[in-house]
């Protein structure tokens, strides 16, 4: 390809669906991920609304407020909500959408290291997702997203197909991570030293390390589960001296680091937002960068905190409890650095910043309740109650999803060359933020009262708080509808975006909005750090 004509950008350079499905441009692949992940989010979100709707009223036998026909269907909807949101939304969410689009731009590269692999990873996700969604039309799956043995071996539902789907989606995650590591190592622009990289890049880099190191273990675990179902190999089967708890160990050896696959890139986005909208150099750049790596490192040694009541040894429980609390250290380093960045900055409450502040508030609650759950004595009481549900939703939704929304509005002008409507965007934040707290805060109390998670029904004493929670879920739904409206409205009739609407200092804002096919007119030469605000 020669020099693109004036006014051409990555969107209008080629036309037609086929040009999108065969594109090797990291920006277009990011958009492909965006469209598909949003669709999965819709499906997973509808499942969540169905679950909350069902829980609106106790005593479903009296047919009051009964939305789902029976407990079996409830279990299936619950499984799809979890599996879709984890494997198809939050894990690929930030790295594959915003990471794909902005990692090369932020380090001044023309593309990721392996563009074909990048497209292949999208097709892996599509294949896995197609298989996963196809199970809905078979016997469906009712194991929850964790596929715990021995139930997952015995149940007659389509576990094998779903597990193969998760394996393929894991492959997609590995390929993305691998691509990002090599990109960061090899494709930085002249002058872009590791310590001049934006913190979003640092967080993606740490995430990529986890993706590459942890996901293969999930791969073999899921393969063994399929083998167990197909041939009864016995490794997780007590009849032959195998151990179902080994499955939990293997599963969480991936799935706990995976929690940080979900949250680390979100933290990276927050670093960008806070510094940009405070117009102030980030406080403690190196500390934030290394705390990402620190979280990634510690994440591999805490899996046992999911298994305090599984019968693992007490010593193991104590060690895992201690190590889990250790995660709080690098996380708190980030929190305090963000707050110090805000201090005496000229804070501007644009929508992305509102989401970032929402993140700080919600993630603090999610994080601190995480420390509570790390205490074995407390966990024995709270295990498998709504307290845990509330905790990880505060981290995953209050943390990651808030960051996705914030990051998305922040980079919207760059991605599409148009401005979104600030007031409807703010309205979406108001509904999501309030709705989120209304939905999940009562669940802490419900959990403390002893309401178990994953149950179809509950005793009448839990009803008032459940009602509040369900109403909250509607508010969140409305908030996302406003968000969707803002996006569509911005795409259709948004004003033309300037190169750098927020006055950011990172490299991607030096590219055109939307960027040209080659990202930059000339290879950028970097002479300063990413956040040198005057």
């Amino acid at each position: 390809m020669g020099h693109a004509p004036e006014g051409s950008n990555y969107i209008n350079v080629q036309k037609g669906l086929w040009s999108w499905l065969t594109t090797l441009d990291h920006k277009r692949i990011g958009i492909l991920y965006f469209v598909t992940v949003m669709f999965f989010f819709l499906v997973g979100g509808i499942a969540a609304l169905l679950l909350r709707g069902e829980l609106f009223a106790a005593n479903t036998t009296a047919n009051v407020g009964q939305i789902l026909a029976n407990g079996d269907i409830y279990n299936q909807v619950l499984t799809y909500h979890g599996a879709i949101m984890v494997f198809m939304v939050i894990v690929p969410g930030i790295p594959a959408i915003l990471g794909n689009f902005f990692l090369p731009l932020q380090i001044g590269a023309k593309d990721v290291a392996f563009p074909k692999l990048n497209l292949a990873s999208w097709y892996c996700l599509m294949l896995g997702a197609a298989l996963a969604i196809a199970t809905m039309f078979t016997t469906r799956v009712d194991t929850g997203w964790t596929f715990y043995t021995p139930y997952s071996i015995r149940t007659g539902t389509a576990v094998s197909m779903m597990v193969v789907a998760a394996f393929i989606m894991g492959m997609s995650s590995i390929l993305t991570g691998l691509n990002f590591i090599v990109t960061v190592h090899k494709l930085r622009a002249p002058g872009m030293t590791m310590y001049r990289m934006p913190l979003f890049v640092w967080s993606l880099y740490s995430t990529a390390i986890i993706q590459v190191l942890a996901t293969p273990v999930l791969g073999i675990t899921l393969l063994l589960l399929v083998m167990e179902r197909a041939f009864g190999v016995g490794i997780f089967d007590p009849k032959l001296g195998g151990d179902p708890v080994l499955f939990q160990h293997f599963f969480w050896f991936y799935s706990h680091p995976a929690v940080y696959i979900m949250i680390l890139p979100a933290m990276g986005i927050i670093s960008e937002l806070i510094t940009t909208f405070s117009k102030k150099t980030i406080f403690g750049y190196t500390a934030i960068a290394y705390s990402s790596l620190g979280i990634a490192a510690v994440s591999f040694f805490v899996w046992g905190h999911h298994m305090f009541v599984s019968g693992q040894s007490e010593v193991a429980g104590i060690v895992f409890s201690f190590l889990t609390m250790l995660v709080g250290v690098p996380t708190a380093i980030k929190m305090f650095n963000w707050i110090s960045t805000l201090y005496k900055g000229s804070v501007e409450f644009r929508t992305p910043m509102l989401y970032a502040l929402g993140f700080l508030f919600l993630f603090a609650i999610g994080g601190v309740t995480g420390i509570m759950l790390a205490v074995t004595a407390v966990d024995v009481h709270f295990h498998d109650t709504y307290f845990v549900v509330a905790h990880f939703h505060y981290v995953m939704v209050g943390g990651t999803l808030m960051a996705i929304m914030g990051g998305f509005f922040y980079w919207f002008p760059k991605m599409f060359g148009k401005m979104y409507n600030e007031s409807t965007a703010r309205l979406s934040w108001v509904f999501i933020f309030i709705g989120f707290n209304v939905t999940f805060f009562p669940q802490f109390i419900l959990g403390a009262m002893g309401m178990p998670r994953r149950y179809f029904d509950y005793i009448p004493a839990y009803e008032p708080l459940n009602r509040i929670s369900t109403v909250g879920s509607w508010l969140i739904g409305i908030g996302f509808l406003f968000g969707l409206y803002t996006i569509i409205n911005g795409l259709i009739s948004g004003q033309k975006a300037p190169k750098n609407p927020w006055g950011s200092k990172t490299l991607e804002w030096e590219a055109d909005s939307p960027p040209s096919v080659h990202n930059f007119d000339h290879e950028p030469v970097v002479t300063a750090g990413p956040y040198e605000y005057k």
Partner: protein
Amino acid sequence: MSTSRIIDGVPVQEHYRDVDHQFVSAKEGIWLFMVTEILMFGGLFVGYAIYHMKYPEMFAEGARFLDWRLGFVNTLVLIFSSFTMALGIYFCQMNQMKKAVWALAVTVLCGAIFMVIKYFEYTHKFHMGIFPGNMLNLPFLNEHLASIGEKPVVSSNLGLYFGFYFCMSGLHGIHVLLGMGLITWCLFRCARGDFKPNYYTAVEGVGIFWHIVDLIWIFLFPLLYLVG
């Protein structure tokens, strides 16, 4: 956007500075992929270690049904194939493409010999009623052992050993087949004249993969065959 231009007679994707930049990046990608391979097998090795600690006598008894001579021959075959694979890369670097094609062909042949021996090992076990896990037919196996005058099986959970045996050697076998396919692809590209002394990325990458597959076998052989 990934378009290529020709530098030193080699197509170099636009986001790379030169031939070498592209080569070392590709190689790092391959090595990272190898890390994932090792971690995937790592799950099986950890499982093996745990159960071996719990049931050492069961593992010892299981190894009794494996012919260490066949395993040993296979080990030699794979080590030799690693040597010919390395030769293939060497000949590419030296611009002796005909010899490189031969070296790769011998490598594929070694892979095939390995798989044929593995096939005979597997079918022999199936004939004796040895299958993974719950499918192991213990009465049938004991009958067979009695007929050839050997002592019956003691471990009631022998199937677990063969669960590991078939999962580990099976997953390894799939990798050997994949490797054979990839080497054949390199062979055809080499014969077609795709490679040059400054451009043989595919051979190098597949070579690294093949060495790792060999290496995994070198661990599997003692763990499965010699553990008794």
